[in-house]
């Protein structure tokens, strides 16, 4: 079932090392939609795991992601607040994006950010600028 994620919740985007800048924050390329992405950006819904904190939930996301994707130790998980993302893109890019649950087999936290154009840096820049170094989490313990 595809449902909107609450504005108070958070999503994490895996950023490969090639898309992390030297200052430790993600490049716009980490959030750019590709044509092959079915017009949505794959993320993970943190509150799906009902942990006590973001760190707790990140541990669950990591273990779930590991089953589907090779996580590089120098890659990072960028955490975004859903409500802030929607509001920032509405103001900066004049777009109403959506953040929806999209669970898959053995990947129940899978979610999608959609509603913005593919191969376009504009929205990707807004998303990347919302993420500070403190919002980047290790992919390994």
């Amino acid at each position, binding site marked *: 079932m595809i449902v909107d994620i609450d504005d108070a919740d958070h999503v994490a985007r895996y950023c490969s090392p*090639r898309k992390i800048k030297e200052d430790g924050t993600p*490049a716009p390329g980490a959030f750019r939609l*590709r044509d092959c992405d079915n017009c949505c950006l794959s993320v993970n819904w943190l509150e799906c795991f009902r942990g006590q904190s973001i760190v707790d939930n990140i541990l669950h996301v990591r273990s779930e992601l590991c089953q589907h994707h090779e996580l*590089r130790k120098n890659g990072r998980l960028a955490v975004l607040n859903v409500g802030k993302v929607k509001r920032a893109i509405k103001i900066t890019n004049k777009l109403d994006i959506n953040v929806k649950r999209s669970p898959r087999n053995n990947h129940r936290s899978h979610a999608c950010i959609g509603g913005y154009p593919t191969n376009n840096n504009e929205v990707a820049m807004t998303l990347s*600028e919302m993420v500070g170094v403190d919002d980047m989490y290790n992919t390994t313990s």
Partner: protein
Amino acid sequence: MNNVLTSTQTEPDESFGRRADSSVETIRFGELQASLKQDMPTPPFRPVTLINPQTPDMLGLRDQVPARDNRTTAHFTYTMDTHNIPLTGRLEYLQSVMAYKQQFLDANTIAVMGDTEVIDALEGHGLVAIANRLKYLYGITEEDEEDVKLNSLRGFAVFVIKNRNVHTPQITITDDGLIQAVWKHPQQGTLVMDFHESGDIAFTLLYGRWDQETERYKLIGELPQDQAILHVKDFIYNSIRT
């Protein structure tokens, strides 16, 4: 001799270790300085033979040494002042500069280089931080990401050599293997450039400090390098790395 340096007229490689003698032609320092300011690469510095150990002070050149606001000339100043290089050494150094400039400022030369050669050329040009960053990025392979596109790397190399006085960007690779350069200024905004295989640059400039509540002015385009730089020149030459 106050503002004149001398140079032998031999080929650069033959001139190393050769002493300045009567078969010389003069190069006015002002001309040299002007030359240094034009897209000058940082040359490889070669050891010199201490034949004529005179300092810039002794030659009356200290006042002629260019200001330190230019990376290339600052390097030149540093070399002259700190290493106390003798006259002969300076002549060889200058010839090395000229040879290096001729070798690498030509985009056509880069256009036939392989990726390792391009990165080595950047390193040889003094763009060591950029070269090291590219080596790091080349060492990463991701299953769902394309390899770095050679023509994108070539285009980026030409850009940073031509515009070597701009602040070093933060460099990443996109999913489709393009070099992506980011310049960020805490107040003025952020510029992103994707170096396409065609040689064009797709650029997006968001003016102003990011916050969630403020709309920002945008400049977006995809143009050949020489035209793209005209649109973002003011930003790129004043931005600082964060």
